[in-house]
């Protein structure tokens, strides 16, 4: 009985919350509506399956606990999501205008997305025929930054993943000498402050002539991605059944065949998520680019850095929205791979 009642209060809270949300949204006080929804709606809904023997005290504690957790989750996710609606602002502001809050279509526009393409073009306002697109592809600054980011990202990922996977295979063997020390050295690029790495790279690259080159940036980014590859691949190799490789070898497979046919398929999920981590690391890196790259190697984060420091405009919010969508896609991929890996390893004995 109590169970039904509590379930009802939970649903009631949610309905009440949604109701207030719509009412206040109509009058424009989205802020008040949202706060009410947060404080009453979500906690009451989440607590609806509290056990029947719960006392009033534990009910109260549960309410406070759920409310606090709701607020913390909001703190985590809201900053990532808030850029999405803001990027459709019709005005050059970084906040919600009155028109946006009352869902007036005039308050929204795609002009900042258009601006991503136009910024840096020779003739941005020319009619949009093939020559306009050629101009955009060649000159628009964000497009050029995106091209650089992809080139640097892909090559540094290939480098980091190949070397990192090989090393992880060696490191996960029990007979590996100086395992702990070597592991500590290989993980340290993740720990050492980026400014220090970038400063050192600047000195070193200036000496050997790698400053202001793609090769220099790619090598640096690969180094920063390696810890992620090692961590993810060694994690997949934990509990790896080494009798499988012995079985393959006893059946006459050579080392390469064993690796390709037996080991690689089993560790592939880990390798791919390591590669994605490495790619994201490179795709997001700005300090090294700031120190050792020239104008020719401007990447997306570098361009954003410039944008925030110099001419701050909602174009950055539009770029940020696109990047958020990319990270959603990457997160989904990694999550699927992780589940696949768990399934694969669940099948192998040991």
């Amino acid at each position, binding site marked *: 009985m109590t169970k039904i009642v509590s379930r009802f209060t939970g649903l009631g809270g949610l309905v009440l919350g949604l109701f207030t949300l719509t009412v206040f949204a109509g009058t424009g006080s989205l802020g008040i509506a949202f706060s009410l929804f947060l404080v009453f709606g979500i906690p009451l809904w989440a607590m609806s399956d509290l056990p029947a023997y719960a006392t009033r005290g534990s009910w109260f504690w549960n309410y406070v606990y759920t409310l*606090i957790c709701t607020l913390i989750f909001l703190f985590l996710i809201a900053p990532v999501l808030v*850029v999405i609606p803001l990027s459709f602002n019709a005005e050059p502001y970084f906040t919600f205008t009155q028109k946006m809050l009352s869902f007036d279509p005039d308050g929204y526009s795609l002009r900042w997305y258009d601006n991503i393409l136009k910024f840096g073009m020779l003739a941005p306002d020319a009619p949009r025929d093939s020559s306009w697109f050629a101009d955009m592809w060649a000159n628009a600054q964000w497009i050029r930054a995106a091209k650089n980011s992809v080139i640097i990202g892909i090559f540094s990922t290939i480098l980091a993943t190949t070397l990192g996977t090989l*090393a992880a295979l060696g*490191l996960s063997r029990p007979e*590996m000498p100086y395992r702990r020390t070597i592991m500590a050295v290989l993980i340290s690029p993740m720990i050492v*402050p980026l400014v220090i790495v970038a400063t050192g790279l600047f*000195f070193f690259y200036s000496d050997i002539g790698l400053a202001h080159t793609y090769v220099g940036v790619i090598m640096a980014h690969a*180094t920063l991605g390696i810890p992620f590859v090692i961590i993810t691949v060694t994690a997949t190799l934990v509990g790896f059944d080494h009798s499988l490789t012995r079985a393959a070898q006893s059946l006459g497979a050579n080392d390469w065949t064993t690796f390709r046919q037996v080991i690689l398929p089993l560790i592939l999920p880990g390798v791919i998520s390591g590669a994605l981590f490495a790619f994201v690391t490179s795709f*997001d890196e700005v300090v090294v680019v700031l120190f050792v790259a020239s104008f020719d190697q401007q990447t997306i984060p570098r361009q954003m850095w410039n944008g925030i420091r110099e001419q701050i405009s909602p174009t950055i*919010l539009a770029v940020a929205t696109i990047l958020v969508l990319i990270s959603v896609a990457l997160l989904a991929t990694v999550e699927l791979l992780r589940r696949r890996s768990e399934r694969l390893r669940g099948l192998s004995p040991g």
Partner: protein
Amino acid sequence: MTDTSAASLPGGSPMAESLSPTVDAPLTTVDGTPLREALHKAERQKRWRAFLLVVPLLLFVLITFVTPIAKLLQQSIYNDDFSSNMPNLSQWFVENPDSFGVPQDEAAFEALVLDLQTARENRTQGQIGTRVNYDLSGSRSLFTKSARRAARIEAPYREAILDLDKRWGEDDLWGVMRRASSAYSSSFYLKSLDLAQTPDGEIYQVDKKQQIYVDLFWRTVWMSALITGLCLLLAFPIAHMLATLPLRYSNLLMIMVLLPFWTSLLVRTTSWIALLQSQGVLNDLFVSLGLIGTEGVLTGMLDSLGMADREGRIPLMYNQAGTIIAMTHILLPFMVLPLYSVMKTIPPTYMRAARSLGATQFTAFNKIYFPQTVPGIGAGALLVFILAMGYYITPALVGGAKGTLISNIIAEAMLNWYNWSLAAALGALLLAGVLVLYWLYDRIVGIDNMKLG
């Protein structure tokens, strides 16, 4: 390479035969080598094979990571801008180790003029002046000016130089030049610690007004500690919720932790700018709730605390608050994930057992649950603290002047002041701190236990 592993166990199966009736004879493999030796050899080969897999990466990291850091350490004690461009004067300093202050020797001034003339030809006077300027501000112009006129200077050099600019007659300048004449110097480390050296080599603390670096190190430490504390405070409840909810809910909520983790640092910093600006989303929200603004409920109170600007809005950005809020958000996942993986392993039956034995909810939590989460707290807190110490991007964009950390001053020294040796010395000190913490992390948590998502 194909069948080394087969060869490494020579005669795996014939071994059974060698267990011959004569028990006291040493065991041998089929080709006669003692078994102990054969096994050793096999073991050694296996170790080499494991090591060979790691070698390419080790070499790569040696080139792109270890060498640059070694170069940074070298740069922090080595600067030959003066010594290599002023060879004659440097030589004179070596030959006259006992002369302090302005030399009476005409030869010193002859060497100086000669060097200034060559500097003018090679256009290195700026470089030389900058090097001396690090230790004695205002001397750069002295060098550029003197080098410009050096060609016309004639003997007697001492008088001519002193006529040109009377600053050449200052003891401090000659003391600084003597120290700069050796390429190796500790002066950049001294400067990083707000110390300086008198001309005769005594170390003292610089003026209160000129002390920046030690304060900045302390600020970096306390802000990182505060951010770590805040992260722990926020991560604990949600990690607990994630660990105790049924899997289908917790997987959904986990996305809320992992999505920020996967989102670009610059995107998150940008959105914090949008949220925290004085005309930004948060301030607008508070104004629309009637809390702040020109006629807000709390405006008077905030104003008396000095926390409101002229329009009654709260300045959340370009100060320490901005750095702390944004960095707490950015580093929070690094605290949640280790906490979660530890809490996941705590059986819920322990809490139920404690409750059934009469413990209150608080006692059960305090005595049973909390102690078991300590490894997770340690791992998360150390990781967040280490990462916070070296943060650069976020403080640079939302921190303003008061909310910047030591990394920002290193970048400043590199990119704007061109004082590379100072940047290197500051970097080396920061690196030392971070490495000690990293070593602690390895001892307490173990690098193998680091997990991502």
